[in-house]
C-alpha cells in the first residue's frame, strides 16, 4: 500500500511551502506603507488610529515570525537551507518593524513640533520625498510577493533585477534628501535634522531588506534546483 503521508512529503516541496507562507507579511507591509504615506501627506491630522493600526500589524508580523520560525526549525527545511530561511523571516519581520518605528517616530515628532510651534514647511518637502520612497517600497514588496510565487528561475532573476533597480533609485532619492538636509541644516533645529536623517535611512533600509529578500529567494531556488 502506498503511504500517502510519505508521498505527500516527497511531492510537496517544504522550501516552496515555506516561501509561500511568507506571503502573509506582504499585506501587512503594504498596509503599513500606505498608512505611512497618509501620515507623511497630512502629518497635522490625528495620527492615533493610524499608528494603532501599524502597531497591530507589527504584532501580527511578530506572531507570523514566531510561527514560521517554528515551522522552519521543526522539520520543513533541511539543515543546509535553514539559515537562509531564518534570515528571510528576519528580513520580512524587519520591514514591518521599520514601518512601526517610523510611525512611532512620526507620533513623537508631531508632539514635539506642535509643542515648539514649529512650522511644517521645510519638513513637508522632505515628507513628499518620503512618500515617493514608500511608493517605490510598495512596488518592491509587490515584486517580492510575485517572486515568492514564481517557479521559473529566469523570471525570479528578472524580478530580482527590478528590485535592485528600485533600491538604486531609492538610494539616489536618499542622497538627494541628505544633500538638501545638509544645505538647510543651519536653518533647522537639531531635532528636525535628526528626525529627517533617521527616517530617510530607515526608509532606505526597507528597500535594502527587499533586495536582500530577493537575493535569498533566488539563492534558495538555485540551491534546490541544481
Amino acid at each position: 500500500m502506498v503511504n500517502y503521508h510519505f508521498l505527500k512529503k516527497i511531492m510537496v516541496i517544504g522550501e516552496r511551502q515555506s516561501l509561500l507562507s511568507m506571503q502573509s507579511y506582504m499585506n501587512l507591509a503594504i498596509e503599513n506603507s500606505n498608512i505611512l504615506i497618509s501620515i507623511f501627506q497630512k502629518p497635522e491630522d490625528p495620527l492615533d488610529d493610524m499608528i494603532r493600526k501599524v502597531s497591530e500589524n507589527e504584532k501580527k508580523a511578530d506572531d507570523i515570525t514566531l510561527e514560521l520560525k517554528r515551522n522552519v526549525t521543526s522539520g520543513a527545511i533541511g539543515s543546509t537551507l535553514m539559515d537562509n530561511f531564518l534570515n528571510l523571516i528576519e528580513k520580512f519581520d524587519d520591514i514591518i518593524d521599520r514601518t512601526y518605528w517610523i510611525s512611532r517616530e512620526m507620533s513623537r515628532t508631531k508632539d514635539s513640533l506642535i509643542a515648539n510651534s514649529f512650522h511644517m514647511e521645510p519638513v513637508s518637502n522632505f515628507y513628499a520625498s518620503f512618500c515617493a520612497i514608500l511608493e517605490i517600497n510598495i512596488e518592491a514588496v509587490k515584486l517580492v510577493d510575485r517572486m515568492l510565487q514564481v517557479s521559473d528561475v529566469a523570471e525570479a532573476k528578472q524580478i530580482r533585477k527590478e528590485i535592485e533597480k528600485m533600491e538604486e533609485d531609492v538610494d539616489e532619492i536618499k542622497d538627494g534628501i541628505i544633500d538638501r538636509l545638509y544645505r538647510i541644516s543651519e536653518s533647522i533645529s537639531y531635532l528636525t535634522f535628526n528626525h529627517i536623517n533617521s527616517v530617510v535611512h530607515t526608509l532606505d533600509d526597507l528597500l535594502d531588506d527587499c533586495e536582500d529578500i530577493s537575493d535569498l529567494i533566488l539563492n534558495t531556488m538555485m540551491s534546490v534546483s541544481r
Partner: protein
Amino acid sequence: MILYYISIFLIALLSMIVSGNNLSAAVGTVVGSRIVSRWFGLLLGAGGFSLGLIIEGRFLSDSIFRIMPDVPYYIVVVLFISFILFALATFFRVPLSLTMAIVGISIGISLRAGFSMDLSYVYFVISAWVLAPILSIFFSFYLNRKISSINVNNAWKAARIYKILLVIISFLTAFTLGANTFGLLASLGHDTLFTLGIMILSIFIGAIFLSGGVIKRVSQDIYGMRYANAFISLLVSSALVEAATFFSLPLSNTQTLTSSVFGSGLSYNTKAMISRPFFQVVAMWIISPLFGMLVGFLLV
C-alpha cells in the same frame, strides 16, 4: 563448532557497528535535508543493507577465501582483530575501513601461515582500491560540472525530481553497501541462512541504536551540499561499489563516497573546501590494510 558460534557472534557485533556507522553515508542526505524522517531513513538504510546482503551478498562469498585459508580458527582471528581495530578506531575517531582491514588481516594471516593466496586476485583488489577513488573524483567532478551547466527553468519541479531521486539513490547506496561490505562479512560465516538471519537482525539493531550521533553529524556537516551534488556523489559511489560487487571485489563504500564528495567539492567554481580531512582519510586507506596485515601476521 564453538569457533563457528564465536565467529557468528563477532560477525553480529561487526554488523551492528558497520550498520550504525555507515547508515549516515547512505541516508544522511535524505534525513539531513528533511526529505524523510529519521525513522524512515533508518528503515530505508537498514532495509537496503539487508536486501543488498540477501540478493547480491553471494557475489562476495568466495572472495576472502581466495586470500586466506578457510579455517575456522583463522576466521575467528580475522573477525576478532577487525572488531578490536574497529572499536579502537571508533573510540579514537579514526576513519577506519572495515573492508580494507579485513582484507589486510587476511593477507597477513596467509603470509604467516604460508597459504598460497590467489595473487592475481589480490592485485585486482588493490588495483580497484587505487582506481575507485580516482574514478569517483573524476566522475563526480565531471557530472557535477555537467549538471550545473543545465539550464533549469522550473526550480520547484527540479527540486521535486531531485528529492525523489535522492530517496531512490539513498536506498541503492545502502543496497550496494549491503551487498559488498556485509556480503564480505557474510562470506566469513559461509553465507548460511543462520548467518544471514543473525546479520539482518544485527543490521537493524545497529541502525536503531548506534546510528544516532553519526547520522546527525554526517547529515548536517558532510552533506551540507545541494540536492544535485548529493545525488551525484551517491550515484557515483553506489555505481562503483555495485560494479566491484559484480567482480567479487571487496570495495569500501566510504572510500568511493568520500572521493565523490571530494570530486563534488572540486567542481565548484568557488573553492571553499578544506582538503585536509580528505587527505587524512586517504592516509587511513593506506594505513588500514597495511596495519591489518601487520597485526594479522604478528598475532597468528
